[in-house]
């Protein structure tokens, strides 16, 4: 996936693009910047106290002003501490509130974006956009900007103070600064690249470990432990090499910077020494230049390092904005929203009752990212309460029709009508609140079984829940569990088998009592006896409901009102079981194939 850390350079670090989010916290931002600058001014002033102490007290051999001196110093210290507290709190709040807003916006957007977005991007990728990109952006807006303001203004004020105190000395001291800046820029760039390589190797090692653990059954049964170990050690060795070389670079960098600050100190000693040899008065000045010489380089490094990091956040900003700006192909029109409300503020009072007649009218469809037309001028009327089965080989595109009914996608041409009205004329919320969906891999959330069942109907009482459970014959599953309805399902619902999860998700759909039901049938992972139970549950839930069944086993759909046969993504045949068998077309072949072998086997046996 596109998780690589490429560098995207945005003008002004992308801050203008983030302005709509920052705007809300303008006042905090101003407070933060002002407090930061005041803090740095104080910081740059401290050496002046040292100078005064040496020049006045020591130089003039008097402690007449000592109480005043201490008083002023303490006042400034207290002021600075207060300013610092304000600064840190404003900065933290901006960061955290921005994070929160960005996450909420992204999450809300994801509840509305077309489902095709989820087909194009995997969950891990999207999750990283919501959780980690937002964090890095918040950090940029708050701490990175703050650090630059903070240390940047320190450098500026310190230089100003030096120039005022002794112009000539200041110039001498600043001689080596350009060199320090150049070295920092060069090394920052190099280290950015090296660190990225180290991170990539690190994630390779993590996935090696993951493979070694999750693939343990295969590794052991193939007896390839040693081979896997050997390959792993190659990776850890590469990691070792790369990390050490990164460390060498950064060691060289710090050493060079140490050398430069020593150089500055030497210049101060040399020039300052000769300049001050005439008298004590200047010794204080001399000493404060020495402290500036030693203390100025770190802020410069910090500023440059922050700028590098700010540039690196560009890619996160891009990706985040791309997420929240993805409109997707399916959305409600203005008029529809005016009448029915949007997903988060639905106007239930305007929702018409859905009866359950579905019609495909001259529908032509191709997937947004596909080339091929998968439906061409397709017409089908599904009467209220009838059932449609969709059959075909794995990967033949059986979900297309369902995607259209659910309006996860919209027809390229033609219309899908529900109760005689184009579904685009009603809101997505209206449609979805009337549709039930049972997935092939039933997805249960963490939480109790009751929580999961209530997902279909929030205000369902225990009686309602129990009667739905009895209806599909799921009480057997419940009995097995220690805490009954209150049993906590772990990650992915580990206590239950696939068949059991399937049944629970059918109960969930039944509780929701949808007018239209979509069923993606269980595959072969469920054994015959369990399949039988699932089948029974399905027949209960589809009764008197318009239903679309994606069938993986033909045995289950013989009674469907219409059977659609899909091949290579196209609907090649439709009719009832009897009609299709008579036609001897694709369906007939598909149907007979299951038993081919039984017959060949019977034949060979008779021949023996």
């Amino acid at each position, binding site marked *: 996936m596109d998780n690589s850390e490429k560098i995207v350079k945005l003008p002004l670090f992308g801050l203008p693009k983030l302005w709509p989010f920052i705007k809300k916290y303008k006042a905090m931002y101003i407070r933060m910047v002002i407090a930061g600058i005041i803090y740095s001014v104080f910081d740059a002033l401290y050496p002046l106290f040292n100078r005064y102490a040496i020049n006045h007290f020591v130089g003039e051999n008097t402690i007449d002003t000592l109480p005043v001196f201490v008083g002023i110093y303490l006042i400034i210290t207290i002021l600075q501490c207060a300013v610092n507290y304000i600064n840190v709190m404003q900065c933290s709040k901006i960061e955290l509130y921005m994070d929160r807003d960005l996450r909420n916006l992204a999450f809300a957007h994801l*509840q509305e974006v077309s489902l095709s977005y989820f087909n194009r991007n995997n969950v891990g990728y999207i999750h990283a956009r919501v959780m980690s990109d937002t964090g890095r952006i918040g950090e940029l807006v708050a701490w990175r900007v703050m650090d630059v303001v903070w240390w940047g203004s320190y450098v500026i004020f310190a230089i100003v103070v030096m120039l005022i105190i002794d112009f000539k000395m200041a110039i001498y001291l600043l001689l080596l600064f350009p060199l320090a800046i150049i070295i920092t820029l060069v090394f920052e760039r190099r280290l950015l690249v090296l660190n990225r390589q180290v991170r990539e190797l690190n994630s390779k090692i993590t996935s090696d470990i993951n493979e070694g*653990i999750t*693939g343990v*059954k295969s590794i052991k049964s193939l007896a390839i432990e040693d*081979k896997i170990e050997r390959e792993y050690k190659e990776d850890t060795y590469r990691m070792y090499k790369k990390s050490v070389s990164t460390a060498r670079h950064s060691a060289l960098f710090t050493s060079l910077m140490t*050398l430069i600050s020593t150089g500055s100190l030497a210049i101060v000693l040399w020039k300052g020494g000769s300049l001050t040899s005439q008298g004590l008065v200047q010794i204080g000045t001399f000493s404060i230049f020495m402290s500036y010489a030693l203390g100025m380089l770190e802020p410069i490094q910090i500023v440059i390092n922050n700028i590098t990091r700010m540039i690196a956040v560009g890619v996160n900003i891009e990706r985040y904005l791309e997420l929240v700006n993805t409109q997707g192909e399916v959305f409600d029109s203005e008029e529809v929203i005016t009448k029915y409300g949007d997903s988060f503020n639905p106007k239930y009072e305007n929702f018409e009752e859905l009866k359950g007649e579905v019609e495909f009218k001259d529908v032509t469809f191709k997937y947004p990212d596909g080339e091929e037309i998968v439906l061409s001028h397709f017409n089908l009327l599904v009467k209220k309460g009838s059932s449609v089965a969709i059959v075909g080989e794995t990967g033949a595109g059986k979900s297309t029709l369902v995607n259209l009914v659910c309006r996860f996608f919209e027809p390229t041409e033609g219309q899908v009508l529900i109760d005689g009205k184009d579904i685009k004329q009603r809101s997505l919320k209206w449609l*979805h609140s009337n549709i039930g969906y049972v997935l092939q891999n039933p997805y249960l959330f963490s939480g109790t079984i009751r929580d999961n069942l209530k997902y279909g109907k929030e205000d369902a009482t225990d009686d309602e829940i129990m009667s739905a459970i009895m209806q599909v014959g799921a009480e057997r599953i419940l009995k097995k569990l220690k805490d009954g309805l209150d049993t906590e399902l772990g990650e992915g619902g580990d206590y239950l088998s696939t068949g059991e999860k399937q049944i629970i998700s059918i109960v969930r759909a039944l509780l929701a009592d949808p007018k239209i039901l979509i069923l993606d049938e269980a595959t072969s992972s469920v054994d015959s006896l369990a399949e039988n139970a699932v089948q029974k549950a399905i027949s209960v839930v589809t009764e008197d409901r318009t239903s679309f069944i994606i069938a993986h086993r033909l045995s289950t759909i013989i009674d469907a009102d219409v059977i659609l046969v899909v091949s290579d993504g196209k609907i090649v045949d439709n009719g009832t079981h009897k009609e299709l068998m008579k036609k001897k077309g694709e369906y007939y072949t598909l149907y007979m194939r299951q038993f081919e072998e039984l017959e060949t086997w019977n034949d060979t046996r008779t021949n023996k």
Partner: protein
Amino acid sequence: MFSKIKTINFFLKGSKRYFALAIIFVFLQVIFDLVNPKIMGYTVDYIVGDTSQTPKFILSFLNSLGDRDYVISHIWIISIIVVLIGLLSALSRYFFRVSNSIGGESLAKNMRDNLFSHILHLPYKWNDVNKTGDIIQRCTSDVDTIRNFVQEQLVNLVRMVAMIALALLFMFRIHVVLTLVSCFFIAIVIGYSLSFHGKVGEKFAKVDAEEGRLSSTAQENLEGVRVVRAFGREIFELERFKARNEVYVGHWVEMMSILATFWTISDFIKNALTISILALGAYFTISGQISAGQYVSYIAYVLMIIQPIVELGRVISDMSKSGVSIDRLKYILDSEIEKDPLDAIDFPPFGDVEFKNVSFSYNESLVLDSVNMSIKKGQTVGILGGTGSGKSTSMLLLDGLYDVLDGSITINGVDIKTIKKSELRQHIGFVLQEPYLFSRSLRDNITIASEKTDNDSVENAVKVSSLTSTIEKFKDGYNTFVGERGVTLSGGQRQRTAIAQMLIREPDIMIFDDSLSAVDAKTDASIRKELKRIAKDKTVIIISHRITTLMSADNIYVFDGGKIAESGSHDDLVSQGGIYSKIFDLQRSVQEA
């Protein structure tokens, strides 16, 4: 405590000398750094003309250069000394950093390699009780914690303590009372910082837990997006996410205000120390107890040790957290690895496989209860049974992934317990129901466990597995990268790849654990037909739910509740009218409908 040291010591093999070097260099660096303030002080005193506090050897050195006027006009000599010392400090800093990170990286490599190697050689059952995520965390973040502990914290601690101790020594020699005042402040800062970091650890854990909750709320919502949409629960989801987000941010704001308070107070103590030294120092200088130069260098020392003192508390409290990580790694290393008995033998001449009264349980209840199976050499045997009937477990036992609780499994009369595990597994091919592919190319996956890697063998295995036409369709053919766990392939493609992976090894016993479930009936049949052709003298065991897959087997075992409920040929079983015939009718019923 002692066992922790032992564990660390074990991992430190090979990296100790680098850390020793690092400590030597860090000492040198500290010493060079501490010399500078002295030079500043002597320079000041010399210029002022008060050399009463300057050591003799420095004075005689300066006198050897010339008289005072000469030296002052040639003060660049001192600059050169400063630069030289700076150069030495820079050099020792460089060598410190490099040897320290070589030490740290080889320590990390050592830990990673040892842990992974150990994990690979643990018995299979170890994975039943240990969660993947947890183990990965031990191998990654716990390793980093320990590396950090040694490379950053321990070494830093040495540096800080050396720095503070030496600086204090110099400071005491300048003025005792002044330094006692400094020590007073230092004690306050360290004490405050220690108690603070101890307390704040719990808060951090709380924030972490809250972040985990928020993160998994998002994760579940994204994974279950279709369910959310289909049930129209967007509002509910958004409200829940917002609420958790708010709680999380609230915790952080609270956390930050605690941290900000800490920073503010320690800043204040630092500044209080500085002003005390400035004022008292000025007083002592005027009263002639110390020279101007000593005053200057004393202030420089105070400024140098302030930061390390504040950090000391953090480092010490961080170090205490590392103990937990050491125990977490120790847990892995202490788990017993899979070992063959000393007198284990090679795989015997291949023959019949016999299950004799085999019982097995994962925890309390028996999964297999006195199972008897007799599988003749070269036979094809079918196994049918519901979920949890013990059919797969029996095969895991045969492959030596678990050991029998009771009874025995023999191959050609030899108990498999006495056969070397790797030998046993090399002679048994096991295609899992959900085959695990490795994130590398299709070809590498097929040949991963095989001695033969030539094109003919690969193509042949692929052909038998009905995978040829699929591979031809791939743009990169055999070089197609299958992704993590083989995600880029469909279930059926993964199964067929795993079959090819087994076939190329030509094992004596081939086990298919429901491994044709995701391919259609036609492909299923053609694979089995091909198998028959190429594997005449091999023993084939097929587990399946499909009667059509099983019925041509020489012998079929039906598992029910950990026991063999029925066995015999297809005809026998159908006529018996038991489970098998019931399922057969169920699957056949469609035809007659």
